[in-house]
């Protein structure tokens, strides 16, 4: 998938530059961009390590676990058909908390375990259950509250106040998550109605 996208970008770029007569600039841009990517990553290590360090404290002090517990009533509301006290509730909550805290790489393993459990609860059918649809729609609506990466990029490219977009981002994220929840709830109602 990405092979085509990436290959296409380079081929198109070179063809367009032949028409525009600026092939020399294209070569320079390729060299400079690769160097720039490394410079950027070095700057990012600092901000990223600061964040993951803080999150490690949050994990060890029990803060993440207590957030996960707080999320339980929300999970019950979003997934009314799930058996209470089933391990899948735990997986879904952990995945969402990791996403909210901007720990995407920690969220994925939890999310995959949640999906496998949801499949078992769905009699191993290869048709997605309403719970799976809700889980993914809410996930894709983006839950992350503090976009650590984007703040790092803004800082590297000379923003005066790289964090000044946080609150606006949170508002946009909340609106899209609410929209996702409404969509998933209505779709579930329609599916259940048809079944009856």
């Amino acid at each position, binding site marked *: 998938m*990405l092979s085509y996208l*990436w290959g296409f*970008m380079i081929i198109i*770029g070179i063809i*367009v*530059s032949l028409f*525009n007569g*600026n*092939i020399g*600039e*294209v070569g*320079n841009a390729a060299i*400079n*961009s*690769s160097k*720039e*990517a490394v410079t950027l*990553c070095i700057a990012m290590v600092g901000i*990223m*390590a600061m964040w*993951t*360090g*803080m*999150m*490690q*404290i949050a994990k*060890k*002090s*029990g*803060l993440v676990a207590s957030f996960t517990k707080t999320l339980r009533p929300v999970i019950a509301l979003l997934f009314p058909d799930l058996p209470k006290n089933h391990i899948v509730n735990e997986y879904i909550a952990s995945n969402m908390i990791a996403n909210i805290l901007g720990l995407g790489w920690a969220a994925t393993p939890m*999310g*995959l375990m949640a*999906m496998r459990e949801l*499949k078992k609860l769905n009699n191993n*059918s*290869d048709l*997605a259950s309403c719970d799976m649809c809700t889980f*993914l729609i809410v*996930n894709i*609506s983006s839950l992350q509250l*503090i*976009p650590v990466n*984007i703040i790092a990029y*803004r800082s590297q490219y000379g*923003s005066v*106040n790289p*964090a*000044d*977009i946080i*609150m*606006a981002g949170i*508002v*946009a*994220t909340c*609106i*899209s998550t609410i*929209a*996702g929840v409404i*969509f998933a709830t209505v*779709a579930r109602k329609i599916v259940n109605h048809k079944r009856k």
Partner: protein
Amino acid sequence: MSFIIYMSNYIIPFTFFYIVGLGLLSKTPIYDEFIKGAKDGFKVVLDIMPTLIGLMVAIGVLRASGALDLLSRLLEPITDPLHFPSELLPVVLVKMFSSSAATSLLLDIFKEYGPDSYLGRLVSIILSSTETIFYTMAVYFMAAGVKKTRYTLIGALFTTLVSTIASVVITNLVF
């Protein structure tokens, strides 16, 4: 609306205060844990570095050749009636497939217009409030062995549309 910018300044210090304060109260060895966690940060960045190099080179080639300008001029007839900047439509579309490709486009916008410009702020907010639809769906459904995904895609496209519109409205209101 300036209180939204004002509050943004408090979020990171407040989060740190909360985490460190609670860590001290619960007698967690916070400094040792911080050092341990910080090591993970290196790994996270190291993992994305090769992807970022590859994609930034591709975007760099597209920008230098004039192809990106050409693309945004081609998109103007679609985006202008929607009052959406034509430079940002490729970012929104690419983000559905690949987060790192969208990041490279974001960096290109930062370079061309600056992170504190209208476009720079809008693209920051759009990318912080959307997820990669096709990648996430592929990974999650593949892991579960589910083939028919039902209304997941429509729902995901709907939330992306909502968050993009919300980002434009909020950026216009706040900045």
